[in-house]
């Protein structure tokens, strides 16, 4: 039985000489950096430069072709239970089921993240995401941007120290991008780490985040 660690315990994420390949193509080599509590890193690069692969390595989904990821001072293998308890990953597809309603989707994602998905928590999340009126609609009736908001509502609620976000602004309108920036700001202020691959600049208030360029 494991419990979700509080966000107040300090977190470190370190990449040591990471290299990534897709098939035979070498995407990136010797990528190293260290992130401490409150750090935000933007990963930039042209299409096909390996941003998604790097982010999946940092989330613990994929083994890098060389190098390693050190989480909280310990090198870890992909899918390590301690890593899973620390990271929230937002990928290209927002993990929303067409057949479930908006609130059922958020409740399911919250429960899967290990949170207590009480009715009030789900309502608060939908309100923050601006999806209250679509509460009982099946998710197939939602736009891409609205589905992404469900995923971000889950992100906001899940008690995770490390956020790994792959193109989180996709399909979001200006208000959504502003909301995401506010979420990242408050996450960093609470001592979390955020790594995001994004073409679009997030209007963060905490000063210029670090930037890593691939390709």
């Amino acid at each position, binding site marked *: 039985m494991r*419990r*979700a660690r509080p966000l107040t315990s300090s977190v470190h994420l370190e990449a040591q000489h990471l290299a990534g390949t897709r098939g035979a193509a070498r995407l990136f080599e010797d990528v190293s950096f260290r992130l401490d509590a409150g750090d935000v890193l933007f990963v930039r690069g042209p299409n096909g430069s390996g941003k998604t692969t790097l982010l999946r390595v940092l989330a*613990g*989904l994929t083994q890098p072709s060389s190098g390693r990821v050190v989480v909280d001072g310990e090198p870890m293998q992909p*899918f390590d239970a301690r890593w*899973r308890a620390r990271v929230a990953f937002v990928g290209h597809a927002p993990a929303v089921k067409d057949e479930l309603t908006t609130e059922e989707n958020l409740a399911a994602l919250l429960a899967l993240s290990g*949170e207590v998905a009480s009715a009030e928590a789900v309502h608060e999340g939908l309100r*923050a995401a601006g999806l209250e009126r679509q509460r009982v609609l099946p998710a197939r009736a939602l736009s891409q941007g609205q589905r992404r908001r469900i995923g971000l509502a889950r992100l906001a*609620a899940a008690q995770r120290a490390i956020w790994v976000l792959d193109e989180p602004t996709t399909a979001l309108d200006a208000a959504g991008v502003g909301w995401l920036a506010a979420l990242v700001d*408050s996450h960093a202020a609470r001592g979390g780490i955020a790594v995001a691959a994004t073409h679009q600049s997030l209007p963060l208030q905490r000063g210029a985040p670090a930037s890593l360029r691939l390709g």
Partner: protein
Amino acid sequence: MSTGALRAALDRPVDFSPGRAFTWALARDLRIAVRTKGELGVQLLFYVIVVSLFPLATAPERTLLAMLGPGVLWVAALLASLLSLPRLFAGDHADGTLEQLALSPYPLPALVSGKIAAHWLTTGLPVAVLAPLLAAQYALEDLPRLTLAAALLLGTPVLSLLGAVGAALTLGVRGGGSLLALLVLPLCVPVLIFGAGAVEAVRAGLPASPHLSLLAACLLVAAVGTPFAAAAAIRIALD
């Protein structure tokens, strides 16, 4: 837009127990299956049609029909199960849920077990309930038909469990459906042999308990082993 209230509502640690993971996955998949139009009906209809086609196509002599019956009913159950297996993980893979499942703090084998249980409840269980009724077309008496139901109740979960490993291994593979059948069918042969054998034994006046015990043993082994194998295959597919 404060997430402060949200955090206050959620400020409780949660146990990441396998039981909780199982029920989460089971409830969610059942809800989705019920709401997907045609999902529940298609396999069942397929089963009914296949089972009813055989007496029409072969010589309708009673003794021959009764001999063929158990085998046909079992093979049709296997094919009906295979029909729905590719969809076990493909939907989650396509919409990004599979990554969330694999990265969840809950144990992936437990989540997978819940999905397999939902699959069985919507495919294997209806088949096991329908088969004794359909077996009337094969001139089988009451006791063989009851034995058939019992054997299917024990054997169809094994088909779902083994099929889940095949479905996980063929995730994202082009032409995965036929590869899945190639992988799963040989593994299911013991279930077919014991399952059909149980009915034939009863027809010959012998007890079916040896066959049913073997089926139960298959079920135990599959229930314990396959969720871990399927979880490992899913992680490979996500790599």
